[in-house]
């Protein structure tokens, strides 16, 4: 096989090259499952995201992104997954999950839809040296039929999760867009 030309890392997608990557995960067609995507939308609308951060609505395509990250020569230093999950808590409750504590029964499943695709998160954390964190929101009952929109409880948690994200990942470089607007408009 002819040696494939050296790949210019500047051609890599942002989620491989930027030091911090935040992925909103879920399906917006399934009620509260769209929580992660809603947080990304909220942050984009209300905050200025620094150049060092890749903030992405990964939707149902998260597995491909994580797969690419796992195999990439360039990776972020920090990865945050925003996801919806049913952990038996109160709907709208936000909590952090340590990928290392995800039950082993889920670890080796390579379904493309297994969110947050825990085996790849484990590989990124343990083998690839990426700091991986998962911020989850407890869902209400997911709809039996396709239905857009978050429940009231989960919708209320979106701004709370956004504030946490900003304070943890870009506190000094970011100000809310609203404040910018007041001073410049």
């Amino acid at each position, binding site marked *: 096989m002819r040696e494939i030309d050296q790949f210019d890392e500047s051609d890599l997608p942002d989620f491989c090259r930027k030091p911090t990557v935040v992925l909103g995960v879920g399906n917006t067609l399934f009620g509260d499952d769209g929580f992660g995507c809603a947080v990304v939308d909220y942050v984009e609308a209300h905050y200025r995201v620094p150049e060092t951060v890749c903030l992405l609505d990964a939707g149902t395509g998260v*597995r491909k992104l994580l797969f690419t990250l796992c195999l990439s020569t360039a990776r972020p230093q920090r990865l945050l997954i925003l996801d919806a999950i049913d952990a038996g808590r109160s709907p709208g409750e936000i909590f952090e999950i340590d990928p290392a504590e995800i039950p082993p*029964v889920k670890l080796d499943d390579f379904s493309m839809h*297994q969110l947050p695709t825990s085996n790849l998160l484990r590989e990124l954390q343990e083998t690839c040296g990426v700091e991986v964190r998962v911020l989850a929101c407890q869902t209400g009952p997911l709809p*039996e039929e396709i239905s857009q929109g978050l429940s009231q409880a989960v919708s209320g948690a979106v701004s709370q999760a956004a504030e946490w994200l900003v304070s943890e990942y870009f506190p000094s470089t970011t100000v809310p867009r609203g404040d910018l607007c007041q001073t410049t408009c």
Partner: protein
Amino acid sequence: MAKTLVIQPVTRIEGHAKVTIQLNDAGNVDTARVNVIELRGFEKFCLGRPVEDLPRITPRICGVCPWSHHLASAKACDAVFGVEPPPSGKKLRELCNSIAYMEEHILHFYFLAGADFLLGPDADYSIRNVIGVLQAAPDIARKVVKVRHMCAHMLEVLAGKAIHPQAAVPGGFSKPLAPAERDQLRKNADDALELAKFSIAFAKENVFPKYFEVVKSLGVITTGFIGTVKENGALNLYDGKLRLMTSKGAYQDFPYDRYTEFISEHIESWSYLKFPYAKQWGEGFSMDVENPKGVYRANTLARINVCDFIDTPLAQAELEEFRAKFGRPAQLTLLYHWARLIELLYNAENTIRLLDDPEITSTETRVKVTPRAARGVGCTEAPRGTLIHDYTTDANGLITNVNLIVGTTHNNAPINMSVTQAAKGLIHDGKYDQGVLNTVEMSIRAYDPCFSCATHRLDGKLSVKLDIFDADGKLLGTLAN
């Protein structure tokens, strides 16, 4: 004592499914069924929406093959509005389709099915995954990774974003390709072609011969096939006419907007997913492995079987070699993998051909559309099979009816038949182990199924497990991966 084995879900396929194997009193396989759960409501969800919203909504159904839904939906919108996109708009769509295909086929061969072949079906479950492949063949993995990166990057250049694409619009394509961008993509395409050439040569030398006994026996069934061809009978994955081929190779062509005249859908009480079958053959429907009726297959092997030829030279040469070995139509289920690599080569060549076409950089990529009351059908070949979007609108262009048939649904009956055949050949006297069960799963993975798409369901709570029931439904034991 009779037992039921349940493999839930099948691992390393796109989505989740549960395989139930019913053993008889002698411990041999009585029946095997692949069960999926359907999430209802997509059609209802669409009612009253502007039809032009659907190319943006449908990629959200599933993140595995969003480009296929995006393009089939855009084509259905073209038909609803009664417009024909300009040549550059069509070519840009087809270019995206070919690149997305390469990304998908590389993923499947090397990292979803590849683990079975590179590591062996009996390998420990904890390494029989993508990381295991990386460790087993690091040099190959590095090349594969580079090209996958390139494919993702090419789609970003073409469409602005690789996830949840929005660039295809009713009437064409929203983003012309600049000449400088074309030149950049052209270099990437050369590398993709090199990997495609390497992949099929590598597989023919190192993979298929090693597992040829498995290929000849696992999941083998005899069915008809469906796929898309151009007017001249050449393989095409973006547009053309549908060709329905019997198991003996006779075929009939028809425009895809007449699919309801040729295909009907059977319902089984134990499955939420319907079973499309060829009603045009007039023999009804049966999944009897020895004597199936109306059953046809979609996806790579089907497309390679139904086309008369491939209009790119390297893929055509591979097709000729394939047919010399296996005939037409080829029936061995694991040949889906071989056919997938021929398609990978075709898409790499097609990408170069499209990029070399001067028309690809034309700025006239779309035409205006006007709402009207109409029905429109869009059809593409998704990596997992023929994908049909069928929309009807009122005079304001608002949706009044929607029907989707996705690739995996076409293969519902064949997958069940292949599982039954594989299970019968591998489980005897009630004896089974993890390797045997994974081999059964291999027969499913050959079809590259996407059950979440087929059933419109995303469920992250299932895990891999094996339940054993006796004839009375009593749980005897559970094994988990």
